[in-house]
């Protein structure tokens, strides 16, 4: 049987959106797929050496439950409905939301991004960074983890054109 192929374009650079590409890529690799992820625009944040700066913003995201990851059960169950106007004015609001989300992630036995990322690399998932956006945002190749390849849209299509599944995230 010919090896199945999964091609992913990762375009988002927040802590929440860091998960889908790495979860799908690592799982597909475990199932025997050959996988490539093309990181472009804000997705480049996901392959920087230091990803501790990845944040989540509840601002303008009505789909995000705002629950506390600590305290008694009744307290954890409260959904804090904080108006956008307040979220946008309180300094450090994103930092607070981000540390609460990291706590929730740890409490639920969900892997960290660096962990999932190295699991992908161990499973031979190929990471390609979009050279155009690397330059556009003023990054250096040394900002990114080892094992990256650099290329453009044509590089992506070389693999994606033969893929069985192709996702834009």
């Amino acid at each position, binding site marked *: 049987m010919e090896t199945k192929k999964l091609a992913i374009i990762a375009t988002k650079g927040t802590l929440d959106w860091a998960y889908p590409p790495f*979860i799908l890529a*690592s*799982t597909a690799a*475990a*199932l*025997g797929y050959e996988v490539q992820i093309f990181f472009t625009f804000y997705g480049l944040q996901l392959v920087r050496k230091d990803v501790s700066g990845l944040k989540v913003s509840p601002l303008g995201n009505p789909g995000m439950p705002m629950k506390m990851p600590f305290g008694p059960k009744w307290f954890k169950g409260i959904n804090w409905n904080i108006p956008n106007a307040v979220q946008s004015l309180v300094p450090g609001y994103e930092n607070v939301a981000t540390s609460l989300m990291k706590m929730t992630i740890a409490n639920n*036995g969900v*892997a960290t991004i660096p962990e999932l990322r190295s699991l992908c690399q161990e*499973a031979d998932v190929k990471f390609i960074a979009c050279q155009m956006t690397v330059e556009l945002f003023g990054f250096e190749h040394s900002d990114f983890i080892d094992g990256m390849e650099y290329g453009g849209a044509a590089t992506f299509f070389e693999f994606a054109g033969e893929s069985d599944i192709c996702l834009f995230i």
Partner: protein
Amino acid sequence: MDFSKELDARGLNCPLPILRTKKALAEMTSGDILKVIATDPGSVKDMQAFAKQTGNELVNSAEAGGEYTFFMKKK
């Protein structure tokens, strides 16, 4: 059921139980049985899907007290 290796995936969430299963199987020989214990309710469907797609055989699975036990025979 006899098994040659045990994997404790309790407390781990998607996709870690599957990734650890794959890794554990890689270190075993064909015909060996891996026992996996997980607490992720999603692992029930995921283990079936993993077996179907990789050709390893899910010989038995059971649930007791919020823990899921799987016996996977390496292809």
